[in-house]
């Protein structure tokens, strides 16, 4: 691609230099993007370095999502750097029981709604979030639908949600 100013290899070296103590594993994704695995305790400092380091400047938060891996949960952040014209994916795992991770709102203000959505649909709590309420579902909804063990409700406030199996 025209704008590939820097090969992925070089980026791995540069990130290794800046974040050596935090990176658990670095991997290439199928489209040559870089995926770095970190410990969830170091999430805030990694994000801060990625955004504010003058050589990296990953200042665009493209995407955030949470994943339920049945034994664990993961949070994923996709960042982009205008300076390097490169994308990086940051991933951190956490335990399945009471999933909780630091909110990165202090670094990326725009993550507010993304984290609310993850909390709403997956039940991952974000420590230090300014307004951690449900976003898409009603506030009295029970459970988190994107969890793999989610049981569909049969009724909500008098509304029958159970689907009739044979409506021929």
């Amino acid at each position, binding site marked *: 691609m025209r704008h590939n100013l820097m090969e992925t290899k070089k980026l791995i070296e540069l990130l290794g230099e800046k974040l050596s103590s935090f990176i658990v594993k670095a991997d290439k994704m199928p489209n040559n993007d870089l995926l770095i695995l970190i410990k969830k305790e170091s999430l805030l400092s990694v994000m801060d370095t990625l955004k504010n380091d003058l050589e990296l400047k990953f200042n665009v938060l493209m995407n955030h999502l949470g994943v339920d891996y049945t034994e664990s949960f993961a949070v994923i952040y996709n960042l982009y750097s205008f300076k390097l014209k490169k994308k990086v994916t940051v991933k951190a795992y956490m335990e399945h029981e009471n999933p909780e991770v630091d909110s990165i709102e202090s670094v990326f203000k725009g993550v507010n709604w993304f984290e609310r959505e993850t909390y709403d649909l997956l039940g991952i709590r974000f420590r230090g979030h300014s307004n951690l309420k449900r976003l898409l579902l009603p506030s009295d909804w029970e459970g988190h639908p*994107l969890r793999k063990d989610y049981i569909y409700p049969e009724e909500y406030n008098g509304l029958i949600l159970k689907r009739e199996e044979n409506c021929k």
Partner: protein
Amino acid sequence: MTEFALEEMILNMGPHHPSTHGVLRFIVRTDGEMMLRATPDVGFLHRGIEKIAELMPYESFMPYTDRIDYLSSLNCNLGYALTVERLAGIEAPEKAEYLRVIGAELTRIGSHLIAVGALLLDLGAVTPFVHALRERETYNSLMEMLCGARLTHHYVRIGGVAFDAPDGFIEKALSFVNHLEYEFLDEFNKLISFNSILIKRLANVGIITPEKALEFTLVGPNLRGSGIKFDLRKDEPYSIYDRFDFEIPSGSGKFGVQGDAYDRYWVRIEEIKQSCRIVRQAINQMPEHGEIKTKISKPFKIPAGEIYVRTECPRGELGFYLISAGGKTPYRLKIRTGSFSAMTIIEELSEGVMVADLVAIIGSLDVVAPEIDR
């Protein structure tokens, strides 16, 4: 003389309000005509598309992508198809890529026509909306010719497209873009774009500085309206966009400050022109014969892995984060849309503006409710 005390009043705007573009609610705190804050309340159109994706085969999910954003369904099809193709390591034939680009750019034109038309309608200018709809009617018929549907196209398939262009489609598409670029846009601009009332309503309203745009993760025309020249079609060319010559319009404070509502409006008008150029070039370059779909294995399975692919939709970056565990269905599919981030900035922009300006701000950000809620 009676003293008028300052009094805060809480008003409910929506969920069914003509200017909210879908089912969307704002809790507006006002003091007379001044607005203190408008807090968006979303989720009325939450259909759980991401959960549905986990329950069905990759190919069967395609019609659901139409419903992410009903105004640009073909672009959503394309984004999903590209994501799956890249993870599975398959490529669409050349002719299919051209048909995809032609369809996607025509859809972008159709979507922008609604975006600018509806903004003007919300501001009280009904006539230009009808003009925009007249042109959109031609676009709808064109898409009907191509794929049989007028709104939810379901045209792109994994590995290609569903149908070849029918006889007469190319000529009609060509005359449509020529008409738009050389006749309609001039007429439209004379009619409304340079109208001094419109300029007064839009210029210097809802100013978003480039720093703020990045902070709130704005994408697409809203980001470019703030003066940041970033377009995925140019900066991260997907499909065959690197073969076309076009420009990236960006806001420059035409009648006010850079990043105001007028800039965002003007970027969309200019983008219609650029899309016309791309369609014309694609039609000229497209091979006459050739395959339109790569055969995919049945049942279709993708090796385990994860990928994030983003494409430029009319409402900005549409990203799919796909995680495959090696089965027939996605393990997790996250859809990141442009309206979602545009919505977050409204609360901040609404502080201390007039109530009438809120409509201009929402309209200029071009939010589509189903895209926020998914």
